[in-house]
């Protein structure tokens, strides 16, 4: 009797179970086999203590709805926790979004009162941000000029983002959901160095620019 190729292969690793899904069969038959396996076989592994699961879909693209179906089946067993559902393919849209997010957008102009700049990814502004202006992006903000308006970095909730400026006198800065006003009220004349703002222990901290590489070493991976 020839062995039929399994559509769902379960492998144990140090981090938990990895479900390798066949990417050539139809999605329905895949779900069917997954359900069978979870319900009937492998009783020894699939009962007992909580196990983390990574689902590897290979070259199959699943919609959010389909992903949810997979999660629903795995959830039938109380001890299975889905850690990740990984696919080697993404849609064009997602690819474009990721590409934008990893790009630095450069603006060379003064952002004036009432003007708004929004961007997915990092922003490099060559010019001033005047009071009443709003600059927001999902990544980091670098201002080669004076920041006197409102800046919002990591607006999707990325607390690792920073806001850097030649002259840091913001009306307000926000990183992810954390807001800070210019509470120390210093005057422009008092400043002689570049600064950046980052989140430390749920609070915004302003530090001299030469500390940036120590506090956010991963920023170095960006190529402008």
């Amino acid at each position, binding site marked *: 009797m020839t062995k039929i190729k399994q559509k769902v292969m379960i492998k144990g690793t140090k981090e938990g179970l990895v479900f390798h899904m066949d990417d050539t069969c139809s999605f329905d038959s895949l779900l069917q086999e997954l359900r069978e396996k979870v319900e009937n076989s492998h009783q020894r592994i699939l009962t007992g203590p909580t196990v983390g699961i990574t689902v590897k879909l290979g070259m199959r693209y699943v919609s959010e709805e389909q992903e949810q179906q997979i999660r629903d089946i795995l959830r039938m067993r109380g001890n299975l926790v889905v850690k990740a559902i990984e696919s080697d393919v993404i849609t064009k849209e997602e690819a474009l979004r990721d590409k934008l997010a990893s790009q630095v957008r450069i603006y060379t102009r*003064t952002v*004036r*009162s*009432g003007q708004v700049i929004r961007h997915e990814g990092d922003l490099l502004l060559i010019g*001033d941000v*005047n009071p*009443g202006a709003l600059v927001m992006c999902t990544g980091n903000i670098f201002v080669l000029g004076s920041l*006197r308006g409102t800046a919002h970095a990591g607006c999707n909730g990325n607390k690792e983002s920073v806001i850097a400026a030649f002259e840091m006198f913001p009306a307000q800065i926000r990183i992810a959901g954390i807001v800070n006003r210019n509470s120390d009220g210093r005057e422009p004349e008092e400043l002689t160095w570049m600064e950046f703002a980052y989140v430390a222990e749920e609070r915004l901290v302003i530090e001299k620019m030469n500390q940036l590489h120590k506090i956010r070493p991963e920023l170095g991976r960006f190529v402008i």
Partner: protein
Amino acid sequence: MGEAIVITSGKGGVGKTTTTANIGTALAQLGKRVCLVDTDIGLRNLDLVMGLENRIIFDLVDVVEGNCKLHQAMIKDKRFDDLLYLLPAAQTKDKSAVTPEQVKELIDQLKADFDYVLIDCPAGIEQGFRNAVIGADKAIVVTTPEVSSIRDADRVIGLLERENLEGTYLIVNRIRPHMTRTGDMIDVDDVVAMLSIDPIGYVPDDEEVIKHLNLKEPVAMNHEAKAGLAYRNIARRILGDSVPFLNMDEPEGFFKKVKRLFGIR
């Protein structure tokens, strides 16, 4: 073909109308044919400042609506033979009485006939602003060294950037030199740095300006007043002369000179 310049500020009360009247007067004194256009429909002031309000028969809205010919609505300022004219705004209508396209057509007609068309813009950034800006080739933004008017000027400069003008220039009005010296008023250089556009003039806060408003004659006609000199200098800069900016400081007293001689500040 002349040049249309809009004088605007965003905030009200910073001296747009006074500036328009004075630059117009100064340009006429320099021998240019100038037409002042008041686009502040419903709240007209320019005719008052020029002392021409009792000669208004038709106004800008009448021209646009076809109630009269353009030349019938224009008022000649007799102090400057055939050089200075005013096209007054209507007082009984409001800003929606005309559309930006109609104003543009009107300004284009005037440009054919005059060296300079100065457009007095109403406060705000609504339709009145659009009416005033659409026909202009250049813009002069007036601000005072106060945070609120600087903020509004910044907003307006942002809006002007979209209009594809040949140039946008800054006038800092109502400067009090002694207050900037003591740090109680924002320094002119800081205003210019903040707004980052080319300055075309600094006008000191001069009581003569108020006096001349009541005299119904622009201060630029007074050769003694400092503000008058500032406005005449602006007019020359518009013509392309490079005139150094006014020294705002009052002349040093005798004691100060002696003190400085001994190195005491």
